[in-house]
């Protein structure tokens, strides 16, 4: 099955940018942190897809993961907000300018602990952004306490065992209204970059929950978010291929083993089924799958759910085409006459 070939880093993409144009500040994370691996794939995906850097709005909360928005697309526009509240910032930003390409990066603490309420409401709105959760099961930046995605029974270095069930952000995402829901692993760059490109082609909330080991605080034995554990327990749900709209490649696929999904922008996603029978267009099936495998210890990765037709939040608002942010006064201040009209009604 065909996916877009990876271009050599000095080449330019369809817009004439090199991969370097998609890099950001130097990372200050620990060497080996999963988050840095994810950053690399974001850079690559944005480059390969050919995103205009000036249209990129990079938003995050607080945490090691949330810092990474500074580490890609330097020419984009970044907003490192407060802990757990990126969804609100992202919603406002997209309202003001629906032409922006919104990407939010968050941690598991940021999203599933303090930020859970906002996350859920963002999902419900199906706000068109890519929402990457860099999931390490702990609060990295505050030195390794359990977050709400920590698995039941997993162990901290100190020996403390988590006795609460983990929150599954993908399951919530499907349930509450997101329309592109995937799980991946920082150690699986090929899958991740493809999922990210697919997300760029989708209009709606794209949740990508990426297991991203914290090498400093949660990469030991007993952790279920370590590189070793994830490598050992990763189970591909499907093999994801992406053909962007600007690529004329014709893909021959076997309908029995592969599902084609047509994206908003003319791109296509191809999903080759693996052992497990799973149709990511089937919402009930996707939910059931996650529910059933909850305590199995498997790390199911791939595209779990996609709804390519549901309207996103901004579409529901029937906005003028130009960004609200830059409408001229002629458009935003009604006429002198209209005020007279209002006043006379109040007399």
């Amino acid at each position, binding site marked *: 099955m065909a996916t877009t070939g990876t271009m050599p880093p000095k080449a330019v993409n369809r817009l004439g940018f090199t991969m370097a144009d998609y890099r950001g*500040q130097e990372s200050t994370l620990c060497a080996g942190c999963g988050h840095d691996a994810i950053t690399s794939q974001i850079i690559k995906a944005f480059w390969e897809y050919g995103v*205009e*850097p*000036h*249209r990129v*709005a990079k*938003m995050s909360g607080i945490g090691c993961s949330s810092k990474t*928005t*500074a580490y890609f*697309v*330097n*020419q*984009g*526009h*970044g*907003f*490192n*907000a*407060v802990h757990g*509240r990126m*969804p*609100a*910032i*992202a*919603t*406002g*930003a*997209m*309202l*003001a*300018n629906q*032409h*922006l390409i919104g990407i939010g990066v968050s941690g598991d603490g940021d999203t599933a602990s303090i930020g859970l*309420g*906002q996350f859920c*409401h963002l999902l419900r709105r199906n706000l068109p952004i890519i929402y990457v959760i860099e999931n390490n099961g702990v609060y990295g930046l505050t030195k390794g306490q359990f977050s709400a995605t920590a698995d039941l029974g997993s162990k901290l270095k100190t020996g403390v065992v988590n006795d609460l069930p983990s929150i599954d952000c993908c399951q919530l995402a499907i349930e509450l209204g997101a329309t592109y829901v995937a799980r991946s692993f920082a150690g699986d760059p090929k899958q991740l970059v493809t999922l990210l490109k697919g997300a760029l082609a989708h209009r709606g909330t794209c949740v990508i929950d990426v297991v991203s080991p914290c090498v400093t605080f949660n990469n030991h034995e007993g952790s279920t978010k370590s590189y070793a554990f994830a490598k050992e327990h990763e189970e591909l749900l499907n093999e994801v291929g992406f053909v962007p709209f600007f690529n004329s490649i014709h893909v021959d696929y076997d309908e029995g083993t592969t599902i084609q999904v047509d994206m908003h922008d003319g791109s296509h996603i191809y999903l080759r089924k693996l052992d497990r029978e799973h149709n990511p267009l089937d919402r009930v099936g996707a939910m059931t799958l996650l529910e059933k495998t909850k305590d199995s210890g498997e790390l199911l990765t791939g595209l779990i759910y996609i709804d390519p037709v549901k309207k996103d939040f901004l579409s529901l*608002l*029937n*906005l*003028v*085409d130009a*960004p*609200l*942010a*830059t*409408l001229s*006064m002629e*458009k*935003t*201040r*009604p006429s*002198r006459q*209209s*005020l007279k009209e*209002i*006043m006379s009604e*109040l*007399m």
Partner: protein
Amino acid sequence: MPSERAVPAEEREWSSHDGLIINNFCIQAATVNGSGSQSANLVLLRAIFQMGVPVSGKNIFPSNIAGLPTWYTIRASQDGYVAHKKDVDVLIALNSETAADDIRKIRPHAAVIYEESLPLARLRDDLYMYPVPFSKLAAQVSGDARARRLLINMIYVGVAAELLSIDFREIEVAIRRLFKSKSKAAESNIKAVQIGADYARAHLPKLDPFKIQRMDKTRGKIIIDGNSAAAIGCLYAGCTVVAWYPITPSSSLCETVIEYFKRFRIDEETGKATFAIVQAEDELAALGMVLGAGWTGARAMTSTSGPGISLMAEFTGLGYYAEVPAVIFDVQRLGPSTGLPTRTSQGDIFSVALLSHGDTKHIVLIPGSVEECYSMAIAAFDLAERFQTPVFVMSDLDLGMNNWMSEPFEYPEKPIDRGKVLTAEDLSRIGHFERYRDVDGDGIPYRTLPGTNHPLAGYFTRGSGHNEKAQYSEKPQVYVDLMNRLAKKYETARQYVPRSVVESADSAEIGIIAYGTTHYAILEARDQLEALGTPTDYLRLRAIPFGPEVGEFVRRRQRIYVVEQNRDGQMADLIRLEVAREAGKIRSLRHFTGLPIDARFVTESILSREREGD
């Protein structure tokens, strides 16, 4: 019932003509909320207004939806006083639960219209009592219990109109206006008014002295509540993004925004909206959305009340430190925590002026009239973008939800000010861009809007330490410089915010400082004080930070009374800090019952403090 008598001595101020008291009294309708009496009260209010008589209405309602006592006071004042007045002259007692108590509280020689079956006639013997068989009258018209309840309201309008000589035609106009879309309802209401009027004419000989007479003092004026006025301000301010969460007494602001925006802000060519309004999941999200939108360049706002302000503390600090424009209306209600959601207050001053941890100070506008709700809403958006910071507009329940007369609002002549925004062309011309550099020496840096198509345009907004280039920095000097620049920006704001209004002959020893709705009690109290030989000067604050006129005003007077509606004298404290060396002059007068402050409170408090010598 008392015999016919002259206006009592303590009421000299009243206009009296042939023993009558004309255009100068308070009507109070005591009813049950959710019973539809609000429409009846508005009809009365408007009819008086249409007769050219200055009028104001205060709604004292409970924090629930139906079945609890509610009071609506209409004050007609030929002199144009619109402050709350405690003395009730004409009581419409329709709430059987509170009627006895209501009657006990009104002034001597007042008139009482009440349901005849209630045993109230003998409670006092110094009142003019008008029993009316409301239920029976209503039953004649409708069999349906709910309809009957509604009709009773209009019947009392008829009774009152007849007794007080309110022109029936004006009542009719007011009713048609209110029910415009539903003209059948209008007819049946008019009929009910007629029934009341007929009954009064036939059975209730006029005994009391109160009467409305046509004047010419309201021509060309409008009646509006502050929340609607602020909504209209947002409309003409070019506001583009609204995110809100319902809370009394602020909800109607955004709800009115929705109405007007749907009507006037749909692009004519495309039929599409030039605005986005989102009902957020809570106040944290509401302000977050506003900041997100402000960052990308919308003129964005939210509206809330006390509990929402507390929830917005963290995001406000982000807006301050990352320098993101936002407009936040705080329609204040009473008390800490949930408090009394349907009572008025000016209790959030301190909280808002310094909202959030770690050295923050905010620009605060304080409208003192519905007109200022309108014009300061417009100013707030301009200031928010000019100063790239959250700007608060502090209204209160009294201003926001009650009806006030006003001159019609004027179309803004100043174009919208988007502040220091660099476009792609600017960037090409200048060749460099440092988001947080103080280029002009006023503390205000330049910004770009995300989406600007220029390689220099991008910068990184954050609530953590950052240098002029918006890069993360923990360097001590970088932090100090940034914080000092923010302080300088705040100083610059003193020149831009609305100045205080000073009314002075500059001879008085006594200065009064007040703000917001306290203004109306001060206006009236100053006249009372003047009449009693105690002239005063007056400064009405309109914004924080203060302009130099505040210090000046204090310096030039002996004693300053800061009058406000909260327990702790919050503004008095801010003024003390402003004039540190003369802080000893400041005397704080505080009214915090949750009812709007009245002139008599001010007059008596000042007189007694003057006597005490403090």
